[in-house]
């Protein structure tokens, strides 16, 4: 499961740290205690920034890094499609062999295909993605109070 891509992201995470955003969420994986605090900044319908901080295993850390790399700068509708594809892959229990189209959509995130065979780790891989989905929904609905980095 530990693809080089995953280990690279784990050792050199993209976009780590909390920066300004319109919404902040805190998600926890109760089975292992992985935690993430994640903020989303929207520039219109474009994902302006996804900033995050947390503790967790290589899978959850690398997954947040990949998410940042993949989603920032994308239009929200496209980002949502990517999130859904990633979710589908991760819930496949190793049964989906990513095809070219999927690889194009997911880029580095396709490296997590192997993780989907390990149910206990799927939640790690999804932690940041679920947090992002939640935060984005809040940012878009305008219900969230803006968050600023200290």
């Amino acid at each position, binding site marked *: 499961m530990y693809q080089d891509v995953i280990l690279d992201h784990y050792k050199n995470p993209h976009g780590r740290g909390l920066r300004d955003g319109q919404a902040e969420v805190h998600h*926890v994986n*109760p*089975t*292992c205690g992985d935690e993430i605090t994640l903020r989303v900044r929207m520039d219109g319908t474009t994902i302006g920034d996804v900033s995050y901080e947390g503790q967790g295993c290589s899978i959850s850390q690398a997954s947040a890094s990949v998410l940042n790399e993949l989603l920032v700068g994308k239009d929200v509708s496209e980002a949502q499609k990517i999130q859904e594809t990633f979710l589908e892959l991760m819930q496949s229990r190793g049964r989906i062999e990513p095809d070219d189209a999927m690889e194009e959509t997911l880029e580095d995130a396709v490296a997590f295909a192997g993780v989907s065979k*390990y*149910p*206990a*780790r799927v939640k790690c891989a999804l932690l940041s993605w679920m947090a992002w989905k939640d935060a984005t929904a809040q940012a878009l609905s305008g219900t969230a109070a803006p968050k600023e980095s200290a």
Partner: protein
Amino acid sequence: MTTTPSAGRALPGLLDTEAIRKDFPVLDRLVHDDRRLVYLDNAATSQKPRQVLDTLAEYYERYNANVHRGVHVLAEEATALYEGARDKVAAFVNAPSRDEVIFTKNASESLNLVANMLGWADEPYRVDRDTEIVITEMEHHSNIVPWQLLAQRTGAKLKWFGLTDDGRLDLSDIEQVITEKTKIVSFVLVSNVLGTVNPVEQIVRRAQQVGALVLIDASQAAPHMVLDVQALGADFVAFTGHKMLGPTGIGVLWGRQELLEDLPPFLGGGEMIETVSMHSSTYAPAPHKFEAGTPPIAQAVGLGAAVDYLTAIGMDKVAAHEHALTRYALERLVEVPDLRLVGPTAAEDRGATISFTLGDIHPHDVGQVLDEQGIAVRVGHHCARPICLRYGIPATTRASFYLYSTPAEVDALVDGLEQVRNFFG
């Protein structure tokens, strides 16, 4: 009286019991030296097919690990098997969601779980001094005592439906029994003494009118008929593994998802939490919220195998088999002098559990003399003493059938009762 040989053997609707019985090792057992066991105590507990026993053995020999928290192979596999059993049970009762299936240790725990949730719930579910609980006079003690305890501890009023002379619920005063004050109506789908199948729809309709929750005790239904929690329209359904070919130590509570989300937990501990600090804790979503501690893992997996076995045969076929057998048994039992049925005398709306008295002969003596002939029946109150009080009898003898029971076993029972009469005559 001599056996009417094979009179019943050609009954339409019977399963191929010769094949089925090969799956049940205990049915080959000889008792009292040389008597072949005639097991007619299925309402107390069922026997287990080899398929279930093999599943249990395989679980322990290959996959045994604690569930949910492990990253190692065995933990992943054990978790997949345990959660796979939940999927099977959910499909078996047609639950809208697998997360609505809670594993308990037996039906009694399932029933107590609901009673306790309601005692600690917030409005609008909370049972307290100004509210009422409704049960019936034909409940198993496990569906009486939890409500008596809840009533004592909250001050709520416990009410119940009485019984008609022919062993059915007396619903003539349903509007007075189930009222605006009623928070919960809990009743048995199939009586473990009378065999009566109760009219769910009428009761659920009235409960919904007044906004009361409905809990159905399906302990004697799940093993014997198609159970569809959506069709029942109840809020909770409880049953028990050991009566439906599964291991002991496993029960089920099905509950509607919104309710399971809103209601408070019962037992606290590992597995049921989201996050714990010394100061406070939050709880995992259902079903885990209600499964504190290491669950009965092997037993759930074994119940999954039992459900597979039953599904492969088909619950409609199981019901047809038992219906044919019940009709035959009722026919033959009325031939026995001094035998008085306790419960409906016709096979309609009736399960394969038949209680009776035999003249003045005490059921203990009936059971003992039958046992000497290898025939296992149950005698006593069957954990439902109010029924005996209602009918003014000290106890009953109960014969109860299952998918492996045969007309020849009915014949053996009838012959056995004749011997009882001779002995004490």
